């Protein structure tokens, strides 16, 4: 449940890199571009150079095989700076769906471009108001694919979309669709946290332009990929929560009122201490989930649901408290803390709210 020396070294390198190259101001700067511009391509090119797309890719496919603990540590560092990049959308989501659901030939077709940074892909699963992977309406009918998807991360810059859909046979599948194919309509947007996503409408997209992933167990692979992605998102959230708490403790140590540092007040100390307890508790659940992925744990879905639910609750608590404890400054755009608040609510809805994961956990445990 701890990083090995290589993983720790990569984490330190990446932490330094994000600190220098991707401060929160870089996220804010994206607003001056149109909504399809959801990350800075130059930043992503440097991240590719660091090898980040290859972290969990098996060596057989020219990956680093550094494991999910390793990737989780990188995601945490990204979370600290609210980094906007296709790491989650293209690498952890789309590329990972490819690895889990694709045939060897398909992996060999699509993976090199994703690893080299020449292409990025988006992953489309959500259709309704909430994350609900069991209800997929987008379906193939009479040689064409129609329907809509929503909350497709970084879809504005993606050249491929990995789209969860029902095949004509009724089976659940993943369709690889070029984003410029006829009948594909993409509407890029930003969430309030400035991260980019978009909706996707498919109007009778011809089946000939679609490549269905055809690995040995697409449905199982998809479930596995979603667990993996969810664990990494939870890790990213923990990085953001940790940063928000640290900024708050620092602020309370500097700000003076009533002739003393605010941080000397026991009422505030207890709230910070409580947050820290919640932080390390959730962090432990996330570490257990990442470690479970590396170890091939059989109860991985339970570990992942615990991790996401606790990460949701923890980041929600810490970001809300952080705004409150920053006082008036907390509700100004001058401070970054408000972005952490917004980010937490966006992350809550991505890949399952706490309600979703508590329900799933209960089902998995037979109650």
């Amino acid at each position, binding site marked *: *449940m*701890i990083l090995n020396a290589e993983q720790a070294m990569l984490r330190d390198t990446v932490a330094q890199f994000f600190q220098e190259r991707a401060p929160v101001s870089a996220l804010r700067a994206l607003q001056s571009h149109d909504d399809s511009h959801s990350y800075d391509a130059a930043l992503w090119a440097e991240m590719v150079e660091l090898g980040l797309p290859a972290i969990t890719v098996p060596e057989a496919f020219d990956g680093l095989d550094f494991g999910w603990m390793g990737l989780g540590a990188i995601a945490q560092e990204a979370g600290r700076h609210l980094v906007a990049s296709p790491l989650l959308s293209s690498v952890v989501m789309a590329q990972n769906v490819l690895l889990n659901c694709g045939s060897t030939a398909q992996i060999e077709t699509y993976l090199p471009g994703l690893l080299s940074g020449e292409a990025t892909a988006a992953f489309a699963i959500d259709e309704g108001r909430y994350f609900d992977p069991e209800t997929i309406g987008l379906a193939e009918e009479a040689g064409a694919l129609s329907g809509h998807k929503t909350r497709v991360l970084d879809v504005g810059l993606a050249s491929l979309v990995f789209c969860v859909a029902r095949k004509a046979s009724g089976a659940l599948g993943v369709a690889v669709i070029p984003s410029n194919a006829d009948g594909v309509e993409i509407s890029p947007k930003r969430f309030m946290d400035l991260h980019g996503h978009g909706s996707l409408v498919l109007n009778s997209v011809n089946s000939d332009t679609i490549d269905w992933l055809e690995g040995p167990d697409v449905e199982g692979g998809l479930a596995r990929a979603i667990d993996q992605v969810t664990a990494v998102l939870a890790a990213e959230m923990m990085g953001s929560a940790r940063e928000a708490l640290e900024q708050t*403790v620092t602020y*309370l*140590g500097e700000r*003076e009122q009533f*002739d*003393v*540092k605010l*941080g*000397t*007040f*026991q009422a505030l*100390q*207890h709230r*910070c*201490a*409580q947050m*820290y*307890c919640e932080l*390390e*508790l*959730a*962090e*432990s*659940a996330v*570490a*257990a989930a990442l470690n479970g992925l590396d170890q091939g744990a059989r109860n991985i879905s339970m570990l992942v*649901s*615990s991790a996401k*639910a*606790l990460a949701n*609750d923890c980041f929600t608590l810490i970001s809300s408290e952080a705004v409150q404890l920053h006082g008036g400054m907390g509700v100004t755009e001058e401070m970054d803390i408000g972005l952490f608040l917004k980010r937490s609510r966006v992350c809550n809805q991505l890949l399952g709210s*706490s*309600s979703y994961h*508590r*329900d799933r*956990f*209960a*089902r998995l*445990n*037979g*109650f």
Partner: protein
Amino acid sequence: MSDQSELSAFREEIAVWLRDNCPESQRQPIVREQQIWGGRRRQFPSEDAKAWFEACRDRGFTAPEWPAEYGGGGLSAEQAKVLSQEMNRLGCRPPLYCQGLWMLGPALLVYGNEEQKKQHLTAICRGEIRWAQGYSEPSAGSDLANLKTKAEDCGDHFLVNGTKIWTTKADEADWIFCLVRTSDSTPKQAGISFLLIDMASDGVSTSPIPLISGESEFCQTFFDNVKVPKANLVGELDGGWAVAKELLKHERKMMAAFEGMLEKPAMELLELAHYAVGSDENGCLKDAELRSDISQHLMREKALGQLGERIYWQGKAKQSDPRLPLLMKHLGTSEAQAKDELIMRALGEEGLSMDDPTVPHGLRKMVKQWAFNKSLTIAGGTSEVQLNIIAKRALGMPSEGKS
């Protein structure tokens, strides 16, 4: 390699020994009334319990890691781990319960002199003396260093006057280890000494304190001109704080060695919830809110274990984050109480009495446990004190009054 083969030989030997010496009845989950406590007035709950205790005593397995010369087993840490694993595997009950084993002994091994070790450790291992702890006082709870029980230097002995509260099971104990004030020097911690007192001495009296659980685990002990020989001072005069800290370190370590130390509830939470609330055709609990809250609790309970694992692996890799252990007490005790509240919600009417004979005994025990467990966030450092410690030591927040 040879270490490993020696250990596996030891494991085999232990497995055979346990099979031969641990009676079937002593391999059942422990029930509180059948715990084996030592002491001058000890009474074994059964012949089997007596046989099991004596077999362990004679091999030093009541205190496996203590030196054999003091009645311990003289086992290495690895061997002791093997023993505990094998005992857990068979479900063996602990052969002896005693605060002397868990708390005083480890501190005596560090701070006691040869005489003290010979006399007290041996009596603890052999279950001859039962110990109580005398730390808190009516006016010194969280502020322990403010204790007033005084030990006056009278040449060949100390004269002790004062009172100790929350002395767990002191009404059944033979000796008590106490923190006493031996000087008024500042800081207050600097005038405290660690004293061993025979509770049969003239002037010692104890009365149980009735608790909201209907039981009286805790007592108050009074000292009225009690003469205590100088030989009973552990460590330096005025140096008792260091001994007390050493003792705290070991407090729960030894207990953690046995999974089966505490009585298990009649039903686990989920079983209880299915029994009391019922479930629909999909097996989901009928009370959706309770179901969600149970999920959350189980996740947090599991995460606590995972936090413990993180601490363990960090330690093994010599990368310990010193902040993490500070969180365990507060998180663990508050989660235990959260579970009790879920039990109470599930129990409904059956949770509203501790002594209604129409309610199954096992369920009433759960209700008593709920009430008793309110002490978890108070005893051994309140949650508020824990949060103070976390704010200062883990988060580095400034002390009050200093800016």
